[in-house]
């Protein structure tokens, strides 16, 4: 597990974000591979249903792909007026190995 002291600091352009109704989520994981910039991953913790829910890392483009595939209507999508640079997770932890914004 990475911790703040020993990982590479990267800043990635982040053009949007999502809001997750984590109590509605049933933990199906369909949003994870649907995300083009690969900035969603499943949490370690669980909601009151007992489901693991997605969590968002820096680099969201506000493209809505996660919302489009979500069967449980638990994602809302926002696009920022101005892109911001946010601290990114270590590449090896993000799953796809690529934090590049593609959308």
């Amino acid at each position: 597990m990475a911790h703040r002291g020993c990982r590479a600091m990267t800043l990635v352009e982040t053009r949007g974000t999502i809001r997750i109704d984590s109590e509605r989520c049933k933990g199906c994981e369909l949003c994870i591979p649907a995300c083009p910039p690969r900035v969603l991953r499943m949490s370690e913790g669980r909601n009151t249903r007992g489901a693991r829910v997605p969590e968002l890392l820096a680099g969201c483009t506000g493209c809505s792909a996660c919302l489009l595939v979500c069967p449980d209507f638990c994602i809302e999508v926002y696009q920022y007026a101005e892109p911001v640079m946010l601290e990114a997770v270590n590449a090896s932890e993000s799953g796809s190995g690529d934090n590049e914004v593609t959308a």
Partner: protein
Amino acid sequence: MSSDRLDVLDTHGRPTRVSTRVGEFEPKLLLDGEHDLCPGCGEPVAIRLLLEVIEELGYAQDSIGVIGIGCYTAFTGLIDVDLIQALHGRAPSVATGAKRMRPDKLLFTLQGDGDMVNEGLQEVIHTAARGESVTCVLLNNGVFGETGGHMTATTALGQRTKTSLEGRDADYHGYPIPIAELLVPLGGVSYVARGSVADAKSVVRTKAMLRKAFEAQIAGEGFSLVEILTMCPTGWFIPTADGPGYLDEVLGEVHAAGELVVGGKPVGKGASG
């Protein structure tokens, strides 16, 4: 839930930065987004598209839906559109009667493969051939989801169900029916397409198909059908995350996505048959 790691963003509330909301939790025409369908089910995704298209076409207050019997029937209490609940398989006939009395309204059916292709096969074929100005929406997951995973008339060869335990075997169980292809040669048909909700691109394409189907109805061009392949990880006995891949590899193999009839004319694969 805790997300105390600095690299995980807070997604609980609205963003604090200046931003525009570009996608809402549930479609406007749902009274409540909380539902009881299984994790990873594709049906709510398709229902979202259907309701968004009705809303975007400006037909929210000029639409009547006729709902079949299946897991999606649980949504009839939540869909904020005037509805008629039909019996298993009968929705196209019910929609016919309603449309003939209310020709100015958008009439759609919402049916599963067990409903449309098993119990009500003749209804959809006759309704199409009559050229009824209705749009039938088929949610095809190749399995009876509500009864717990049994073989339907669209179950793909090799697909395991509780009544085809070793996988559907053509010699023993017969072949799946590709309903969209079956409708192609019929005279009354204006638009037929098959989409899927396996991934975001397919979802966007499928939404465009629904829009075209409804536009054909509004233009008075005749019958339209949009078949939507949906995941049923519960009835496919696989993890939810494997649903989209299974859909593409197993169901998609028999029921290929694409438009088959546009403007009353066969196009693509369906045309060659």
